[in-house]
């Protein structure tokens, strides 16, 4: 389980996260909803310590990682994976090398075994046959799927999705949402998704957290979210009509 306790983060004078406490429960999909610029991506980066923590604690598997150094975090990150908003595929490497990256970094698998794992992960995201293509030759949706295959290559315990459906057409977005569900169902991975896409949240979430201005406004099941009378939740559900 991942747990943040009173997590705060500022950039200059701008406070992006304010005393944010969230539990990402093991084997479940938690969706963090919020408007653009409310610190959702920052939350994921702070948990992974790609950004530093100003105050508060982050627990991963009951270990307080708040004061961990970069080298200590390396060990923790081997158990985690993150799919970035822009996919962040290594554009100087073909798809095969992108997916094989963590295997080459952290395992001593033979090239034949690496080839098998890459093929298996590409099959999972339905991108078989793209091994030789460069990221620039792929569409946005295809890049997301390859990025997911890369993230899954070393079977992480946790996968973070940063705005997985942003910029995609509804059909491709649905495919990505289905993949997120399949990841959890097939591997038991704990999934955290940050998004402003209500359809995506409705489809993949088992728990929803709504944040505004870096603060938590709502936490509950998707059903609770639909029934909530909190003004901001109602406004968010209705796309601002109830504001």
């Amino acid at each position, binding site marked *: 389980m991942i747990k943040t306790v009173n997590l705060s983060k500022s950039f200059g004078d701008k406070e992006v996260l304010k005393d944010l406490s969230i539990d990402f429960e093991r084997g479940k999909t938690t969706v963090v909803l919020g408007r653009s610029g409310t610190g959702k991506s920052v939350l994921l980066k702070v948990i992974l310590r*790609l950004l530093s923590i100003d105050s508060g604690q982050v627990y991963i598997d009951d270990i307080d990682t708040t004061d961990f150094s970069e080298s200590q975090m*390396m060990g923790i990150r081997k158990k985690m994976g993150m799919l970035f908003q822009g996919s*962040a595929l290594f554009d100087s490497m073909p798809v095969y090398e992108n997916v094989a990256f963590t295997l080459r970094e952290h395992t001593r698998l033979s090239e034949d075994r690496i080839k098998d794992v890459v093929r298996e992960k590409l099959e999972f995201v339905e991108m078989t046959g793209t091994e030789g293509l460069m990221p620039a030759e792929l569409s946005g949706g295809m890049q997301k799927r390859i990025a997911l295959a890369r993230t899954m290559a070393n079977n992480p315990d946790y996968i973070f999705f940063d705005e997985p459906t942003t910029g995609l057409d509804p059909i491709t977005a649905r495919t990505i949402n289905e993949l997120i569900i399949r990841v959890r169902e097939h591997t038991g991975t704990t999934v955290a998704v940050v998004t402003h896409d209500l359809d995506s949240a409705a489809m993949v979430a088992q728990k929803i957290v709504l944040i505004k201005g870096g603060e938590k406004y709502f936490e509950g099941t998707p059903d609770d979210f639909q029934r909530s009378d909190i003004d901001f939740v109602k406004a968010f559900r209705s796309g601002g009509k109830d504001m």
Partner: protein
Amino acid sequence: MIEKILRNSPPGAFFGHIYSYILFLGTTIRSAFGGPFYFKEIIEQLYQIGNRSLSIVILVGTFTGMVLSFQTGIEMARFGAKAYIGSVVLVSLVRELGPVLTALVVAGRVGSGITAELGSMAVTDQINAMRAMAADPYKKLVLTRLTALLIMLPILVAVADTFGFFGGAIIASTNLNVGYALYKSTALNNIYVEDLLSGLVKPIVFAVIIGTIGCYLGMNTKGGTKGVGSSTTLSVVISSIFIFVFDFILTKIFFLIYR
């Protein structure tokens, strides 16, 4: 925390960068100890640096030797000393012009390329993705490029010196009536160990300057494609300034040691 305090005051921004750069150097040095070692990437970078720079280094070296031979040869002829043109050309190239001009070419061709590549990776979250996958970008991106520069820059300087020497020989022979045998013998008789040492140490220091400034600015690029452009320009400007400053400092040190 110290960095934050420094950056929050306008005059402190400069010192904030100096502080960040020192931290960057410390992290780079620390990452050199212990595996994994990326030999394949170093070979790739050696090829990239050599491939990007070799032709222009040959051109710069050859024409520098020719100009040096022509201009100093004419002046030396007035004092009846043109026989020593080979010595002047070789010593000037080995001690000063070879290392400095080659470093400036490499800063423009390779340093800018490193900053642009790492800057693009930074603004598209590729460096964050690398860290998220528990890979050390200092080992994989910085050390590989720095190591390749440390190996390749002295080689490129040697190439520039060699072509400059022969360029000077052509002018000495065709314009000054100094034959190749005389040109070569005066050159080799008047080159000393300290000249060669200076010619070896300077490229190593310049490689550190180009590599670390190029990587530091690249990895700290913010602000999308505009930021990549700014960092790339800054990389060439700062590297060039530091090359001239450290050239003077090293020349002074060698003078003090060997006077």
